[in-house]
Structures are given as C-alpha cells and as structure tokens.
C-alpha cells in the first residue's frame, strides 16, 4: 500500500513552492545565455565559466525544483506544519537563488567577494534546508522506499554542498585538494540527482503513467548499492589522491538497470493515452543509458572520460528531462489541488480546471520538441565545440527554458486569476 504523500489539510499555500518552480527555468535560461555569449566555455569542464554554467543548472535548476517540491512534502512527511512556512520558504529561496547567482559570478570572474557571499548564502540555505528535511524525515512514520531515497539524497546533498563550499573557498585563494572536485561531482550527480530522481520515479511513474510497480529487488538495492559505491570511491580517492574509476562500474550498472526497467515499465502502461511526461521520461532514460555507455566505453578502452559530453547527457539529457517531466505533473496537480480545496472551503463559483487544462498538452509537447532539439544540438556542440555550433545549441537551450518557464508561469497565473476572481473564474479556464 502506498504512502500518502499529498494531503489537502497539510498542504502549504501554493505561494510556498511557486517561486522555486518559476525561478528554475530562469536559471537554466541564464546558463544558455552565458554559453551564447561565450561559446568557448564548451572547450573544457575546468574553465571558470564552465564551472559557473554547470552550477546555474545544478543549483539554479535542480536544487530549486527539489527544494520547491520538498516545501510541499515537508509538512505531510512530518505530520505537522513547518513553523512560519511562507517566511521560511521565501528565506530559503532567497538564500539559494542569491547564493547561486553569486557563485556563478564568483566562479566566472574569480571575484572573491562574490565567492564569499555565495559561501555564506548557500551555506546558510543548505544548512537550513538540511535541518528542516531531517526534522520532517525523522518524524515521518513512513518507511516507504521513496522516503528512504529522499533521506539518502538529502544526506548526499549535504556532502556535496560541504565539499562545494570548501572548493569555493579554495577559489578565493586558499588551497584545497584538487581531487575534492571529483568527490563533489560524484556525490552531487549520483548521490543527490540520480538517487532523488530514482526515488521519486518509484512513486510517480506507476502513479501517473499507470505502469506496474518497480521491481522490489531494484528498489531495495538502490540506496545501499549507490551509498556503498560512493563511500568506496571517496575512500579510494581520498587515500590515493587520484579518482578511482572502478567504483563507477556498480554505479553504471545500477543506473542502467533503473533506466531499462523504467523503459520496460512504460511499455507495459495500462492505458496508452497521449502523455508528454512519458516522452520526457523516455528521453531521460535514453540519455542516462547513453551517458552510462559513454562512460563505460571510455573506461573499457582506457581513454580519458569525455567530461563535457557526459555532463550534457547527464544534466541536460537525464536530469532536466526527468525533472521537466515531473514538473508537468507536479505543477498542474498542485494548481488543481489548491483550486479544489479553495472551492470546497469557500463554495466559489468557478469550475475547477482539469490538469490538462492547467497546462494544455499541446503546449507541453512543443516544449518537449524544443528540449529534444536543444539536447541534440548540445550533444553536437559537446562533440564539436565550434563557436557556431555552441551558439546554436545555446540558443536552442534558451528557447526550451523559456517555453518551460512560460508553461509553468501560466499555470500558476491561472491559479492566481481564479483565486482572486472566484465568481468569474469559470470564464478564465482554458485561456
């Protein structure tokens, strides 16, 4: 029996997660803009601007969406309201958003003041978030695998953020061991992003895409398997000074297993209604498999890891695709949930729109096409980082981010219109 992860009574106001979901595509768009004006950033993962670009995506997009979604879940998990939910959500949002902008500026320019602002702001933000999440997760009576995966992902985020802050400190002129970058990357990509997507998938793929449940063996093996591989990688890298490659093998196998199972489950959908989120998830799994194969190919032939191509496949192909697919369920569902609640509480005259009316399928489908096109261009630019190719790819990426932002914004605006004008709300639906 599944755990109740959503509740009317404990749901915070929509204004709590909304800024996170609106700002995330803006940060992705900013990353695209940065690449457009400096296409040389695709020459190496180590360029200061490339590090800035990466963090606009990882912190500005992934962290904000994750934190926004957590705002919704915290009171439900804890079985209690978050104290001063609206103020704490806004404070956390400002800390992470401002810290991300400062970090991107500091990494790109080497400005120590920006880096110090970023360290302070992100340090406070992630410490506050980790405290809130730990409070909610420890109070939760549920032992649902998704909850365990979330707990592990939050722990990995704390490790990632801790290493990241130390590395940022290193950029101010202090000395920090270089191999910490690989630890930071491994804990962030595998322990935080991949594990969180996997844990959430166990719940949302069967629920929203009407697939069978994930196999128990996969669900049970994921958290201990990935945690063991990360700890081993950390121990070996810490001891030897050079990043050890072989702990990547069990990680690659687990990620491939997850991707293949997800694709197989989607083939076994009960009803094959058109659903753009299925396309987003298929693309995410395809990109994850491609990333695993690129990594394994390089490892098998003893070649250098093509870091930029892997980054594009993992972050844009896997991460952004899966998170976009989730956003196209989360945001319409929350809008529907809150309007339904409002109508019940106040007896307002408007008709509650369906999820397909909140974000019309055709608009989401256009954004999916733009995202797919942008991903292909980005892969092309990673393989051939010429100025023209990189500029075209970054333009495609910006178009996709803008369409995603517009779709999410219009959904939240529809809620605002109906909430303010309940008597005339029915006319606003579908506009």
């Amino acid at each position: 029996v599944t755990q109740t992860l959503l509740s009317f009574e404990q749901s915070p106001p929509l204004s709590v997660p909304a800024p996170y979901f609106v700002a995330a595509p803006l940060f992705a768009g900013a990353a695209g803009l940065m690449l457009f004006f400096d296409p040389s950033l695709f020459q190496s993962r180590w360029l200061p601007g490339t590090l800035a670009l990466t963090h606009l995506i990882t912190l500005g997009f992934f962290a904000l969406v994750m934190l926004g979604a957590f705002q919704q879940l915290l009171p439900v998990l804890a079985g209690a309201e978050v104290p001063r939910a609206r103020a704490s959500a806004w404070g956390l949002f400002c800390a992470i958003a401002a810290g991300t902008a400062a970090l991107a500026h500091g990494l790109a320019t080497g400005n120590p003041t920006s880096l110090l602002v970023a360290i302070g702001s992100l340090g406070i933000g992630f410490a506050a978030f980790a405290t809130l999440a730990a409070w909610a997760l420890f109070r939760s009576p549920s032992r649902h695998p998704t909850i365990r995966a979330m707990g592990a992902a939050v722990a990995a985020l704390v490790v990632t953020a801790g290493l990241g802050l130390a590395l940022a400190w290193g950029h101010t002129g202090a000395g920090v061991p270089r191999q910490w970058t690989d630890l930071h990357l491994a804990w962030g990509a595998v322990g935080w992003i991949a594990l969180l997507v996997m844990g959430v998938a166990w719940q949302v793929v069967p629920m929203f895409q009407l697939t069978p449940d994930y196999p128990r063996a996969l669900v049970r093996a994921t958290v201990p398997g990935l945690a063991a591989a990360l700890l081993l990688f950390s121990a070996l890298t810490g001891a030897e000074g050079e990043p050890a490659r072989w702990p990547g093998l069990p990680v690659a196998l687990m990620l491939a297993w997850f991707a293949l199972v997800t694709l197989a489950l989607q083939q076994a959908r009960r009803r094959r209604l058109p659903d753009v989120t299925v396309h987003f998830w298929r693309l995410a799994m395809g990109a994850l498999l491609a990333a695993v194969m690129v990594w394994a190919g390089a490892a098998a032939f003893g070649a250098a890891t093509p870091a930029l191509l892997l980054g594009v496949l993992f972050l844009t192909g896997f991460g952004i695709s899966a998170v976009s697919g989730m956003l196209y369920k989360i945001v319409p569902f929350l809008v529907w949930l809150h309007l339904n609640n409002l109508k019940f509480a106040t007896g307002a005259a408007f008709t509650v729109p369906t999820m397909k009316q909140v974000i019309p399928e055709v608009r989401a489908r256009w954004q999916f096409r733009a995202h797919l096109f942008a991903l292909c261009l980005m892969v092309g630019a990673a393989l051939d980082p010429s100025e023209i190719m990189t500029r075209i790819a970054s333009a495609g990426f910006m178009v996709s981010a803008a369409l995603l932002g517009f779709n999410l914004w219009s959904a939240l605006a529809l809620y605002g219109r109906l909430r303010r004008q309940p008597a005339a709300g029915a006319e606003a639906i579908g506009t």
Partner: protein
Amino acid sequence: VSERTLDVSELEPPEPLVLTIEAAEALAEGDWLRMLHRRDPCLLPENLRRRGFDFFLRAGSRTAVEVFIWRAGDETARLAAQAAMERRP
C-alpha cells in the same frame, strides 16, 4: 438499497478522486458505492470524511483495492456495504 460500482483502476490522478467524490455525492438514501482502484487512494479518505461520508477499505479481487462508501448516518447503506464487504471476494 442498491450497490453502485465505479472502476477507476485505469485512470490517472486526480480523476479517480474526482469521479469517486461525484459518484458518492450522487448516492440516494440506502445506496452505497463500491470503488475499485489499482492502488491505495491517497487523498480519498480525507475528502470523504470532510464531505460527510464513511467508508471501509480492503484488498480487492479484481483490483488491488476496493473502497466501500456510504453517507455517514445512513444505517441501511452501512449495513448493506458491511455485508458486501464481509463476503470475501
């Protein structure tokens, strides 16, 4: 006294919730609703209670979960639903 049956096992959230609430609201006195679903309905219990309905929930035979719903205070419907629930599938 009559039983209404609603199979929402192949619908995507939140349709199972919306259709079940609509079907429950349409129940006449003495009638009860048997709702069939593929999974535990997350939001349904809270919504039913708020709208003045009582219910039982159990593992089903045709689908993973069956929910038996009637208006709170409608003894005839409650007894009929309970009798149906006690007849193992």
